[in-house]
């Protein structure tokens, strides 16, 4: 029983982390139909930004959230205006966008390498290793905070999408970009904004990951792969699906240790990814666009 509680808590904490990593990827795909392969690079950038703010100016990572959001939003707008905008739309643009954004990721990695060298870094705050007792076991305070952000983010995102004019425009563009142009929505602007919001979410994920893991310029590839799994499970482009899918992935990965050697538990996610893509291309919960 205690083991079950332990594993369940691990799964919930892990789900929080996976969800924050995947929201940005899901949003961008949902609206622009572009798979942001630079997602891992933005996560890495977010981690380093948080590290710089913490090491140089002693700003706590959670207080640095707004700064990181603004900065990675800016990075996203820049990436959209300079690069993504010039891609062909439609199915032919698929491979091209993958490669373009992969190139962007490589450049980001190189920049980080030049700025910070390849050394492993980490952020250590006073609560990095603190934990609180819960149901006979311990829960990391920091992981709880990450979970909190993972729950708050989609709520804010839904509010943004449902209550604001821009949000409604984003949803409309996600449904049908052509008719939006007809009714006077500036689709280009909406695309840029969405891309910015998506990368801002990735930046947040990077910042949060940096409080848990150590990182270097190559950081983010594992995160990108997990995000893929989550977004595909949740149905590409469905925000709430992402949250649920993160939970499912985390549960499966964590509980797999009961039947599989620990080393192979990370393969479980990839196998799920392929199975879902092949059997239920719309994701586990059916295809919804920013439902």
């Amino acid at each position, binding site marked *: 029983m*205690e*083991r079950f509680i*332990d*594993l369940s808590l*691990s799964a919930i*904490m*892990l789900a929080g*982390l996976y969800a924050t990593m995947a929201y940005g990827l899901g949003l961008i795909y949902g609206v622009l139909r572009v798979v942001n392969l630079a997602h891992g690079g933005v996560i890495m950038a977010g981690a380093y930004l948080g590290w710089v703010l913490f090491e140089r100016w002693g700003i706590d990572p959670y207080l640095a959230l707004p700064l990181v959001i603004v900065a990675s939003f800016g990075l996203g707008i820049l990436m959209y205006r300079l690069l993504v905008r010039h891609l062909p739309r439609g199915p032919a643009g698929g491979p091209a966008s993958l490669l373009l954004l992969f190139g962007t990721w490589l450049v980001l990695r190189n920049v980080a*390498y030049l700025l910070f*060298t*390849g*050394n*492993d870094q*980490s952020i*250590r705050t006073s609560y*990095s*290793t*603190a*934990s609180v*007792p819960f149901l006979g*076991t*311990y*829960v*990391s*305070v*920091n*992981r709880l905070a990450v979970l909190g952000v993972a729950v708050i983010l989609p709520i804010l995102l839904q509010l943004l999408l449902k209550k604001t004019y821009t949000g409604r425009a984003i949803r409309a563009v996600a449904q049908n970009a052509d008719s939006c142009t007809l009714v006077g929505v500036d689709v280009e602007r909406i695309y840029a904004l969405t891309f910015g919001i998506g990368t801002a979410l990735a930046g947040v994920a990077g910042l949060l990951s940096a409080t*848990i*893991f*150590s*990182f*270097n310029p*190559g950081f983010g590839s*594992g995160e990108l792969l997990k995000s893929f799994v989550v977004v595909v499970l949740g149905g590409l482009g469905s925000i709430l699906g992402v949250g649920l899918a993160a939970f499912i992935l985390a549960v499966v*990965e*964590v*509980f*797999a*240790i009961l039947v599989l*050697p*620990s*080393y192979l*538990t*990370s393969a479980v996610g990839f196998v799920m990814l392929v199975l879902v893509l092949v059997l239920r291309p719309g994701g586990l919960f059916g295809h919804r666009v920013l439902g």
Partner: protein
Amino acid sequence: MRSRSTPTPCRSALLATLLLSLVAAAPRAAGAAAPTKVSLGATLPLTGAEARIGGFFKEGYELAVEEANQKGGLTVGGKKLPVTLSILDDTTTQATAVSLADRLVNSDGVDFLLGTYSSHLVEAQSTIGEQNRIPYVNGGGGATKIYKRGFKYLFGTIAPVELLGTTLMSWIDVQQKAGKLPRPAKIALLWENTAHGKDFRKGVSDFAAKSGGAYQISVDESFPLDGKDFSALLGKVKAANVDLFLADAHLPDYITMHRQYVAAGLCHKVVSYGARGSEKGAVDALGQENVNYVVSGVWWSAELGKKPGLAKAFVELFTSKHQGRKPEWFQALAYESARALFTAIEQAGSLDREAVRAKLAALKIPSMLPGGTLEFPASMGQQAQNPFVLQQNLPDRTSPIIFPPDAATGTGIAVNPRCPK
């Protein structure tokens, strides 16, 4: 996409041939005139996953070369020859490590090779030394299997990781015999799935198997390099209710895993992450209070320089060059590898590769490594078998050597005082 706009086939073939000859247009190695210098080559992971350590090895190699040149070079056949060392970046990639070593030997014409860092790169790269019959001395490939291939030109100053497991268990055994640890003691053995981790596992589990039931391995799990979430694995450790927590991990995994370990409220009578534990990076990332009493085993430690001898001289040389920074085992093994090669060259009295190889095989010199002597026993595939030293982090921010007794600079504390009774 318009696909028909490529150049005509004839021109293409010509172009491909031209480009390929560009690939082939490497300068030819200089002929065998009378040697005016000893030229050495090495690749190191200066970028990529192992970049940090690659840099440390570079420091060690460069220090050895500078030292030799300050003395006017190496005495080869009665003449003083200066030493040059060209270091290329293998980007922590096997294929690059191999082809750059090929380039060093067959294009740049180096006389001898020094090794790169980490077992999988050394295992791949040492084939070049063997193919070209050129001595290859390394301090970065500790996996025993590298030396089980019967290579004649491969020499390792780095003792097998297996010995790390054995040394760790020997210390634990002393504590158990002194009644400080329960018998049988239950072990959680976690190892990264690399040659390094596998050797560590072998050392520990062989020792446990031969102990006549004094140790019982309750958890035996591997994890991927750069694993991220260890909570499920640590949950398994927790459920197994073990006494000893013995893991083998690279630095980033150590930091990540140990944070989760502490946050999960785990505590064991002995905690070790193999070679990790005493480095400054880890202390910074985890906090002194969280790394206290962690036991680590290393090939060499600056602590050894506290007693007079070769190690002391090396530490002083290194710290004076690097503004007071202390060397770690990486620089020491790199330095010792270069020094072993230099000694063999001087003993051979020529740059003849066969002669130097023979001298290396017969080498037996005083060394700053634990054990005091460096040799490459043929029975062990020419891999040095120097013992490890165990260090333990103490709350006063020191990490004295606690084992073996002859090298010890402090006393080990066997039951981790952090754990609640």
